[in-house]
């Protein structure tokens, strides 16, 4: 009521707000201008940037076994054997002498790659299935709805464990494909629900009156309005995919020959790094993953504010 009162007629006057307040209110009015989105994207881009630039500035071959002395601590620390960190391995080395910095430079983009690829494929499946269910309706809708209800219950980790136990080693892309088979359900459900409600929207009826084809209605009228939801669902799926991938790696599955953050943690735990206080070995990949998840969460919170104006509080 009051909101309407403000927009319609009464003229505002008199600047009576502090600068901080004005900034907050402007953020309220333009949701994309949002510190959560900004910081979240910043963190992720930072990780990608380090991954790309790191390959140039740092020797990626250091990820191989025996690249350096075993279990060296990061620069400025000392391990239990009294060895001090060296400049050649500023973040220390793991139990096989692999350089931690190189591991992070190679491993972090790998995790993001799996997450983004799996989520992209899941998303595309979700768009196709969600639009089909919402538009065609009837039997198609029933099948897609029940199938996504069923598949959303099954935790991907367990099926993937069975798969990898039977098939053995996989590469990153294969792992992303496998995970993608389990992350189409939530975008499907989301898009289906939105399409069903948008079908009755005035502007979709107007488009039909304008002789628009189904394709035009789906992609030109509906899809643009789904963007914040799709984006949010995409980010949530990236998170799920990375969690699943890391889970597999920590169980000793996943790619065996490519350095990944999860596999590094797996080896650290298995070698008793926790008890021997080799904190950098498991701690650095853990921290990097944590940072990645925080970045993803921030983006998601920011997107929530875009698609649900009520979350934008003054």
């Amino acid at each position, binding site marked *: *009521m*009051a*909101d*309407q*009162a*403000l*927009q*319609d*007629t*009464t*003229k*505002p*006057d*008199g*600047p*009576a*707000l502090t600068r901080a*307040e*004005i900034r907050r*209110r*402007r953020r*309220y*009015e333009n949701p994309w201008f949002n510190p959560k989105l900004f910081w979240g994207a910043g963190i992720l881009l930072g990780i990608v940037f380090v991954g790309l630039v790191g390959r140039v500035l740092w020797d990626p071959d250091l990820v191989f076994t025996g690249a350096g002395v075993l279990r060296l601590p990061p620069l400025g620390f000392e391990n239990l054997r009294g060895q001090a960190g060296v400049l050649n391995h500023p973040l220390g080395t793991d139990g096989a002498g692999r350089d931690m910095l190189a591991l992070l430079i190679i491993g972090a983009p790998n995790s993001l790659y799996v997450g983004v690829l799996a989520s992209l494929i899941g998303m595309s499946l979700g768009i196709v299935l969600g639009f089909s269910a919402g538009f065609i309706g009837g039997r198609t809708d029933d099948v897609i709805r029940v199938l996504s209800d069923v598949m959303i219950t099954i935790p991907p980790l367990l099926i993937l464990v069975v798969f990898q136990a039977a098939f053995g080693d996989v590469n990153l892309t294969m792992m992303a494909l496998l995970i993608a088979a389990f992350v189409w359900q939530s975008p499907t459900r989301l898009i289906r629900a939105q399409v069903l409600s948008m079908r009755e*929207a*005035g*502007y979709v*009826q*107007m*488009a*039909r*009156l*304008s*002789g*628009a084809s189904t394709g035009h209605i789906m992609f030109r*009228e509906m899809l*643009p*309005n789904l963007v914040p939801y799709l984006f949010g669902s995409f980010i949530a799926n990236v998170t799920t995919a990375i969690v699943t991938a890391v889970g597999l790696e920590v169980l000793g599955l996943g790619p065996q020959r490519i350095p990944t953050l999860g596999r590094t943690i797996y080896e650290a735990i298995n070698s008793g790094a926790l008890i021997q206080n080799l904190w950098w070995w498991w701690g650095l990949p853990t921290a990097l993953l944590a940072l990645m998840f925080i970045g993803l969460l921030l983006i998601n919170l920011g997107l929530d504010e875009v698609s649900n104006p009520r979350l934008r509080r*003054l």
Partner: protein
Amino acid sequence: MTVLEIKNLSIDFPIAKGVVHAVSDFTLNVPQGRRIGFIGESGSGKTTTALAAMRMLAAPGRIAEGEIHLMSLGQTNIIKLTDDEMRRVRLRKISYIPQGAMNSLNPVMRVENQIWDGIIAHEGAVSMAELRRRSKAVLESVGLADHVGRLYPHELSGGMKQRVCIAIGVCLQPDLIIADEPTSALDVITQRHVMQTLRKVQETIGAGLILIGHDMGLMAQSVDDLAVMKLGELVEFGPVRQVLEAPKHPYTRQLISSVPVVGGQSFLDNPPAAAVADTTPARTVPLLEFEGVAKTYGSNTALHTLSFKLDDGVPKIISIVGQSGSGKSTMGSLMLGFSAPSNGRVLFQGRDINRLSAAERMAFRKDVQAVFQDPYACFNPFYRVDHALAYPFKRFGLARSPAHTREEMEKACRTVGLNPALVLRRYPHQLSGGQRQRLIVARALMLSPKLLIADEPVSMVDASLRATILKNIYDLKDKQGISILYITHDLATAYHVSDYVMVLYRGHVVEAGPPKAVIGDPQHDYTRLLIDSIPWPDLDRNWGSADDARADLDRLDPVAANPIFRGAVAGFELATA
């Protein structure tokens, strides 16, 4: 005795661009037992003022200045009360009946619990038997049976829910009741019942009443004094008779004149002639034809078998009037080919519209256009508003060049009274409802269809703009030669604009004929009830008591499907078989 005194009240809403003065220097007294109407359009500050008396302003609104006194609390200024003291004032001294009847009750609590919790919050421990006795009594006072108390809100109709809200509002016999557009979501028949119920219980407990609304007719039928608000200011206040018969402020005059009245002065410059003499030779193929059309949804019949023929000689406006659920929107959707009839055929220029080839379908789409009820939903929020005008123009191959499209858009805008430079490149949310609805009319104008389906085109637009938009639509017939099917619940406008009226009730045509006969002198029980229920700005008219309204509603149930035909117009044939 005065129950509420508002002195020099000002309310501010700080926003990004500065401070909005939602209400400024508002002074008013509410005497005991008296009904005061607050009337004004959205944004006039009427609701904000009332909420201030409840101390329930939505953030970031705040009372900048002024005092509010509740007499039963002595000289205490309400604004100075602590939160807990204010809590105790609510419901016990001032109660509030909200606008959205549909959503005002807690969906997971039984109705009676929602009456009891109010009693307990103010009186502490009350025995179960006492609670039951009181909820029963208060439900009865609003005409609801005892067992309704044990239902959940989703099991009630809109009118019942709003009466439950009234029951809650009066259960502690407050000094003042604030009713915020309590009937805006209800149809006119239910509106009369709910409104009269509210008046009755308010009289019984002798409370003051503030009725917030935008409908001059409803005010005339319901209140003693009228406060007219515009842009946060009280522009006129006085006894309702004085305000209606001798309005001082031009805005009040505008509000009064914008209410169409059956039989009154037409708001059109060139109203339809009484009987259209069709001079063109009758064509063999009608423009639109319903051939034994019926529509069912599962076991529900939305529309009973109906046939009509509308020829394409002299353009006509055919009105289809009825309440929600009468089947009138189903008819609209059938004509547009949005849904297929369960029985019979819908023919446009002799072709079944549900069996068109792709090319024929395009032609059909171009020839049959629509204006829908909700101007807010009709624009895709992703695009600028000109998308809605330019897209169909190009799609139907009418555009010769981008410049041509632009020219036509601008011409259409000017025809409906919009400045193209100010509206076309805006996003939908930057325009008012009235502007958007006029753009939709402009869109129809650009496409120059043969038939226009106007489904409640003005029910969501501010009252002062309704007449203007209806004039725009009427001009489509008058100047562009477009035949129009006008679907509405508003009999007064149907009376003025149409050549022929069909009254629909529960999927049956109950009365049909020229508007002067059907609406001016109704014969069917249902049509009569509809017309009796319309609130008019006529103080001497008896709107009936709550019991009358109730009795009328009960009488309706066995309405027979025997339609009464009240004469015909050339070029339109109707049959119910």
